[in-house]
């Protein structure tokens, strides 16, 4: 199934694992290889960046706390040259660093200790997003994602076939969510994208608008299925059916 993500090629997806714990890189190498991925490992950010430059992996999994060049610095360096999906391995208590990594451009995170299935699910989702045709570039006037259909010109949105009425900001926020479905979006990222750079600290705006959006799109706003909260971090949008 994972090979579908690389449907345009016959080669397995290439994953670079960067972690200073040799035991963990051994496990991940074997675990990912057993699922048919091509895996290479590096012990720190510096070696990781070198491996990336030589090998051009389809996805990077990196730890945050590492000697020499750490995970944050690696994310920064990678984002300067590439849009490769990055999954960050972090520990509970590293929320601040994790948010920073996501702000820099990491796509997702997995909290240690994790089961291999959790990591694999994130790997699949990230690869799928990376291989999906870009919604921005197709410049079409409609967006279709899971339960959502958006007409960008007439600014009409239907959920599960039902039209919903949104304020302009709610519309922008939902469209941003749909365009970045599956990806963890930090409060900062969302505020900057919808309200602009001066509002990145105004988490309460976001809470209010997400609350309103949930009332309009969720079947049960108290147990949301589309706009999922990532505690202390931000939100993750699941458009329903087609992705999950």
């Amino acid at each position: 199934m994972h090979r579908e993500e690389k449907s345009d090629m016959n080669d397995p997806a290439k994953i670079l694992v960067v972690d200073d714990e040799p035991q963990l890189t051994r496990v991940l190498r074997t675990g990912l290889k057993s699922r048919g991925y091509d895996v290479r490992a590096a012990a720190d950010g510096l070696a990781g960046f070198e491996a990336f430059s030589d090998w051009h992996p389809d996805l990077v999994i990196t730890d945050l706390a590492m000697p020499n060049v750490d995970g944050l610095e690696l994310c920064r360096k990678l984002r300067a040259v590439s849009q490769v999906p990055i999954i960050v391995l972090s520990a509970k208590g590293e929320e601040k660093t994790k948010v920073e990594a996501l702000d820099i451009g990491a796509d997702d995170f997995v909290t240690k200790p994790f089961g291999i299935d959790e990591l694999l699910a994130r790997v699949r989702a990230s690869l799928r997003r990376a291989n999906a045709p870009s919604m921005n570039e197709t410049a079409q006037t409609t967006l279709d994602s899971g339960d959502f259909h958006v007409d960008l010109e007439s600014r009409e949105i239907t959920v599960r076939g039902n039209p919903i009425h949104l304020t302009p900001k709610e519309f922008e926020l939902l469209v941003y969510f749909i365009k970045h479905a599956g990806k963890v979006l930090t409060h900062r990222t969302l505020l900057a994208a919808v309200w602009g750079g001066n509002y990145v600290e105004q988490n309460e705006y976001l809470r209010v608008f997400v609350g309103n959006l949930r009332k309009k799109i969720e079947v049960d706003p108290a147990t949301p299925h589309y706009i999922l909260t990532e505690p202390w971090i931000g939100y993750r949008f699941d458009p329903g059916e087609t992705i999950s």
Partner: protein
Amino acid sequence: MQRSMLDHKWAGYVVAGLSVFALTLVLKIVGTHVNAATVSLTLLLNVLFIATRWGSVPALFTSILAMLCFNFFFLPPLGTFTIAATDNWVALLAFLVTAVTAGQLSARAKKRAEEAETGKLEIERLYAELRDAFERASHAEALRQSEKLKSALLDAVTHDLRTPLTSIKASITTLLDEARGRVNGEPPVSLDAESKLEMMEIIDEESDRLSRFISGLIELARIEAGELHLRRRWGAVEEIISTALSRAEPITKQYRIAVEVERELPGVRVDEHAVSEVVYTLIDNAAKYSDKGSTIRITAQRADGEQVQMAVEDEGRGIPVTLREQVFDKFFRATRDGDVSQQPTGTGMGLAIAKGIVEAHEGRIWIESGTRGKGTRVVFMLPIGDEDVG
């Protein structure tokens, strides 16, 4: 109670009156043997006494009263307030001026002394307040530091517990997926025998790592709580070293080991197991932080003052002077917390435990540069031990 009564101003006047009359009476009784100068000096002394005890106004009252008595009882014609001879007028005037001046001066001196005393008390009070404030501030600072330290320690502990746990969890879930076959419509996982073995090895090794870490924590907690009970008995240094070396064999296979023990080294009265643990920790560290193929040198010799000095030296990169104290702090790792590198890291407790054991033996442990111009030399000194004890 009496003291407080005497402190009143009116008590000064009463005492002044009584004392002047009493002195006059006494002087009158021994009258034939005293001249006017003796009388005036005696009365002056009384003025000084009243002035120092009750201040300037009672002193002035005493002076006038004394002057009147002096005039009435001792200056001819006696029994009148008139004075016959002119020089007696001068004497009386001189007496009055002297009495008033001396009285005022001593009263002022008393006042100054009192002010100085009050000032001193005030300074002492301020000093005490300042000291209390300072103590409170440093206590708060110490508390803040201790909280910071606690949180740093907690981070270190959780990192060290979580890291092996992560490898174990990832390995076991990979093996489980393979054992369960197809999950959630996923294709079955293909793990060859070698991969399965590797996963199991990792679980085994990481469980050992967790177990070592927890044992270290327990040992450290015992040392810190002062519950390290040493079982001291006489033993040979060679034996302690060889026990440590045989335990360290798996980690020293790829190193050259040199042991130099001074001939006729006396036996030591120590907990052999604990000291051997110290030597093992030092050998383990030496192997961790130096290149394979290099030499690890273990030495033991007699030192001054009935002590034995043991040292483990490697040919690694050495430890910067600034970190040589810190490496004995628990959870401190030179490679991770200081000069970062890609070298393997330990539990960060070995040296802290070693220090605890050495100090429990009333010994001392420290770090020097290697004797051959490179590497690290960890030295510890133990008292040979007392024959009579235990």
